[in-house]
């Protein structure tokens, strides 16, 4: 009988991750996504988001092929984000970068957005840009708007405020690109346009 020596040290994060899937995911799906997840792990990419994607697909009753395709696509996007950001990017940054690429940001956009906050976690900036795009703001406008706000020293709360304000304006009927541009001007402290007030005649 093969000797199978198991110690606490030998139980890897991979084992824990696969337990999360194996208790919920049918065998054909596991077989279909396993190679992609294994490859991602071997490449040093975070596998948590890939597992989330598998669980989402299973819950939505997608077939194994469709789930596998979704996982492959996400793994590719994570790899592309890592290529743009470098090895020190956090998992959240990589996921945010992958989401941005899916929404329409370019590699150049990712690099610029990340460079706008050197030494800080830039996930939120990427997420806000992505959310603006999904609300209808053109991707180049979204990038420009977030960069403008970051350039003015925006905090995370400011970025979140930008996102929510644009959302409200769009819900109120303002064209998406206009809403984003206007809110960015306000948040970045751009000079307000002075409207001359004509005194009303006194009767």
């Amino acid at each position, binding site marked *: 009988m093969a000797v*199978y020596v*198991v110690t606490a040290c030998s139980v890897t994060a991979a084992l824990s991750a696969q*337990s999360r899937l*194996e*208790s919920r995911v049918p*065998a*054909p799906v596991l*077989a279909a996504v396993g190679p992609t997840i294994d490859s991602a792990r071997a490449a040093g990419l975070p596998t948590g988001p890939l597992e989330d994607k598998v669980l989402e697909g299973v819950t939505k009753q997608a077939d194994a092929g469709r789930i596998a395709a979704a996982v492959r696509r996400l793994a590719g996007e994570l790899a592309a984000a890592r290529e743009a950001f470098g090895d020190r990017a956090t998992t959240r940054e990589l996921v945010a970068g992958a989401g941005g690429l899916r929404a329409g940001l370019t590699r150049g956009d990712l690099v610029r957005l990340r460079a706008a906050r050197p030494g800080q976690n830039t996930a939120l900036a990427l997420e806000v840009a992505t959310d603006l795009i999904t609300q209808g703001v053109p991707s180049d406008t979204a990038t420009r708007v977030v960069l403008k706000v970051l350039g003015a020293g925006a905090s995370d709360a400011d970025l979140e405020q930008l996102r929510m304000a644009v959302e409200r304006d769009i819900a109120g009927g303002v064209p998406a690109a206009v809403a984003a541009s206007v809110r960015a001007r306000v948040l970045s402290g751009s000079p307000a346009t002075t409207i001359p007030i004509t005194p009303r005649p006194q009767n």
Partner: protein
Amino acid sequence: MTPTDGEVIARVLAGDVDAYGIIVDRYHGRFARFATRMLGSREDAEEALQDALIRAYRALGAYQHRERFAAWFYRILVNRCRSVLAQRQRRRAVEEPTADQDSPTSDAGFVGREQATWLLSRLPADQREVFLLRYVEDLSYADIAAITGVGESALKMRVKRGLEQLRQLLRQGNDD
């Protein structure tokens, strides 16, 4: 009074790690039987079973009690067996009785262990899997569908084909 699976799991989650031994003892025979028949090797089966038991232990916090523990565990074990078979295929190792081996001879009506292993190895893995779960493990099609993720009508078709194949192989063996 014998604790239920749910009570044992609750004990483990409350800190009594060794209580997991009750689960291992309770189900080892059944699970080892399935893995051995599925993989055709006692050695591989024990390795797959050990791996599955550890994976199940780690996932106990996610076990929801909505389904029987055995069904939940079968899913993990089926997945492990499939992984082993996939690994074999990738290594192209001939660990199952080879295709060019003749069927072991038998007295009419008696199927020895060696012949049983050979016969099962002739079935494609997906037919073997459902055949074992249905006729050896006595699971319902509903349970097997939940374990394997395959619809019931597809399962029944695999069973039908598997039975036909086995009958034909047995007839050939007895004719030799």
